[in-house]
């Protein structure tokens, strides 16, 4: 697939590296020559220097025959303009990163497709959604609903009080048949487990199950239900505002922000939240603002390091649930080992959504899960595609992917070796980084 990326910022560069690793033809446009030189000499991709909104640059980069145009500069207006230009040259599909909730509303879709923008990605919005779902179920690390909750993927950290700790997958499969263990995240890497793999303490295990069995999974993992009401947010970022809007009255928010003007801006936008001016890294301030009474601590400041450390502090002060925004991908597994409850990364959210768009699936609802080195995708099996030709155990799938479940006729079900996938099924696939292109081949 020929992919053009406008903007070599954090998200753009991350996408470019990832897609190049996925064997796609990637061309990236940016004005910063130094940044491009670093990408050009180290990755298998093409760079074009020029303004992402310039006709000449977009044309030179080959927009006329590109399959996917992704505009991820920091400004949404530039992104929309770039998409419109690319579309006018003949780009097949365009994606713009936006930062305005209004644009996501279904009624406005028509306007954007007239402008030549096919898909919108809004990482801040998805970050807020992810936080809300993690607050709702505080025992879960990651939560993903597929097809209106017909299938659910949950990531749970296993501790020594869990019933499945120390057991091999085939043993677990003998006792409990209502879930599928799709992936295990251990230390710095994600593995797609086989029957002989043993679940160890400290693993984050990804289960796929139907919604009625989720409580049973919680029980065997040894987790307790707890209701979260009061949340302390560190850093009044765009995600914080989005989170406030999305969560509504279900939670009571207190936002600590160290910039005076920003505090007033926040106060205007979040009337029911308490806004505190101060530095959230200061323990005295945290105690004064009642950290010990809080149910959750959400660190959303610009600094990943500060977010992680603040969460560790909050945990020590007795907060049950912590959420940290970690933008440095290499810190994610460190943060997980430090017991930060849920980790938010805009780059991963954006790239997971791009993968979903690449697989031509419906990208309006977030049917993806952002993991550092793996992806979950839900894809429709086309008639005649390779995946429908035999039962799952006879398909000889490569070891870096597994089929977790499928939705047939609007009903979610798990997949076993004997299941035969039918055309029209929506299949949930776990795959490790670098194998998305294999999936593409299986399903089309």
């Amino acid at each position, binding site marked *: 697939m020929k992919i053009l990326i406008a903007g070599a910022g954090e998200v753009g560069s991350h996408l470019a590296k990832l897609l*190049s690793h996925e064997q796609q*033809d990637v061309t990236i446009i940016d004005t910063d020559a130094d940044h491009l030189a670093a990408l050009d*000499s180290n990755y*298998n991709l*093409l760079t074009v*220097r020029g303004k992402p909104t310039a006709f000449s640059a977009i044309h030179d980069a080959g927009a006329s025959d590109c399959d996917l145009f992704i505009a991820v500069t920091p400004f949404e207006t530039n992104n929309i303009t770039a998409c419109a230009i690319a579309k006018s040259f003949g780009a097949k599909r365009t994606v713009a990163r936006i930062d305005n909730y209004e644009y996501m509303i279904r009624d406005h879709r028509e306007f954007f497709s007239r402008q030549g923008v096919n898909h919108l990605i809004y990482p801040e919005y998805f970050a807020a959604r992810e936080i809300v779902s993690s607050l709702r179920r505080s025992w879960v690390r990651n939560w993903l609903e597929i097809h209106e909750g017909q299938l659910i993927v949950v990531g749970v950290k296993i501790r020594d009080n869990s019933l499945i700790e120390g057991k091999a997958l085939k043993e677990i499969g003998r006792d409990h048949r209502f879930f599928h263990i799709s992936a295990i995240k251990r230390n710095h890497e994600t593995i797609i487990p086989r029957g002989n793999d043993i679940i160890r303490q400290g693993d984050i295990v990804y289960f796929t199950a139907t919604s009625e069995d989720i409580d049973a999974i919680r029980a065997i993992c040894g987790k307790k239900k707890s209701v979260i009401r009061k949340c302390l947010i560190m850093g009044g970022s765009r995600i914080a505002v989005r989170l406030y809007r999305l969560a509504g009255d279900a939670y009571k928010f207190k936002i600590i922000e160290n910039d005076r003007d920003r505090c007033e801006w926040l106060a205007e936008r979040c009337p029911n939240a308490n806004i505190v001016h101060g530095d959230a890294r200061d323990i005295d301030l945290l105690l004064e603002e009642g950290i010990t009474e809080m149910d959750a601590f959400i660190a959303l400041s610009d600094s990943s390091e500060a977010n992680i450390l603040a969460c560790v502090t909050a945990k020590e002060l007795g907060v049950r649930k912590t959420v940290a925004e970690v933008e440095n991908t290499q810190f994610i597994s460190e943060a997980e080992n430090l017991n930060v409850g849920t980790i938010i990364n805009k780059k991963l959210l954006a790239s997971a959504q791009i993968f979903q768009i690449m697989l031509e699936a419906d990208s309006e609802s977030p049917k993806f899960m952002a993991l550092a080195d793996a992806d979950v995708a839900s894809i429709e099996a086309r008639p005649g595609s390779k995946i429908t030709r035999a039962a799952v155990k006879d398909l000889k799938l490569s070891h870096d992917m597994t089929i977790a479940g499928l939705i047939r006729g609007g009903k979610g079900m798990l997949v076993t070796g004997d299941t035969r996938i039918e055309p029209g099924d929506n299949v949930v696939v776990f795959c490790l980084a670098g194998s998305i292109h294999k999936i593409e081949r299986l399903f089309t």
Partner: protein
Amino acid sequence: MRRINYGQIARVLSWLLIIEAAFMVVPFVTALVTDGKDIAAFTWSGIITLAVGLAGTVFIRPSRNNMAKREGFLLTALVWVVFSIFGMLPFIFSETEPMGVTDGFFEAMSGFTTTGATVMESVSDSSHAALMWRCLMQWIGGMGIILFTLALLPMLNSSGGMQMFNAEVTGITHDKIRPRISQTAVRLWGVYISLSIVLFLLLILGPMTPFEALCHTFTSISTGGYSTASSSIAYWHSYYTETVLTVFMFLGGVNFGLIYKASMGQPATLWRNDVFRSYLYIILVAYLLFVIAIVAMGQYHDIASVTIHPIFQIVSTITSTGYTVENFEAWGQFVLALTFMLMFFGGCAGSTSGGAKIDRLLYLFKNSRNELYRVLHPNEVATVRINERAVPTYIVSKVIAFLCFYVIIIAVGGIALTACGMPIVDSFFSSFSCLSNIGLGAGITGYGGGYELVPDFGKWILSFLMLVGRLELFTVLILFTPTFWRK
């Protein structure tokens, strides 16, 4: 830093050897259809190369298959050495004109690096197979061994392959023409092969036999300069052949990425390119000076002696091909001095030619001009602009470092050769000639080849210089720094 992944390097090298063995089929077939000499030599060389390659691919199973910067440099440099080692086997096994290891390695390295210096005493007595192999080596080496394999092996279509591409392709910055490295390689080789086919068809229309035409196709588009006749191109006495070869040597000196873009319906890009324009201007100016010198020396005989002969000589020199016309010596010392100058220039970066490359000289020249201007206007901010883009200062300083190393290596190489007992002028000239991959010789070595008089140790030095020159210094020099090997 991590340990260097030797296993993976050995494995890729083995793959490449299989490819080299496949190339050996060409001279083998040549022997079958022409004079039938040296069939055994090529059979054995092919079998040995293939066996080593297969053994490597079957038995070496590296635990990791990633390749980073260091593996890229090491592999690229090793490929050229290993190819030369196996490429010399036919010369050693040859019945018609057997060579020693020193001579064989020198000949093979000179072939792959498209230098064109030869130690064969009498080219016309050699077997057709051996001649074909020499020319084929230049053709493979011209575009690049790595570039060829990048087009073939999907396993190199990754960041590791990128590093190798950067280590092998000539020039300061390496322009890709397609996002994925294998596609870029396929297109560059596509241009190369298409040009070769056209050239071959044009050459057989002239006085050359198909065998000679194929050999000269291989050596002129690659700007290598091996010939099948001792007296080089002059042997055919054909203005037609000289004209055709001039055009294709000229093309061999142009950036192949540029030729690709121009042939894809954007011919204007060629003229808009500053380097290409400079390349043309240099040839034009040199032509005027050559004509003046020829007339002044009283060498005006017919119209050809002031048109095709000087142009042929200029293009052959600037592209580092190294073919010579009949009475080059009679044109005088001034022309010889100009020839040195042209040898130093070389063609455009990204072409098959050798030398310092016009791109670098253009950067250097514009930068020096800016510095001169700054003497009077110290506050002026002047940038080096090439192809309507300002060149960052770090690239300019990289170019200066390159030229600095270039001069140092010529000097050290020349001094080392005098230590072997060679006359001083010849020492420096052959050091310069081999580092620039031209292969012209002076003095004892005589025009148009004849390096057989150089002592054995000198041949090893010159072989090394050819490799350093072909990989544009840094790729090889970095291997001799302690930091490269430190864990």
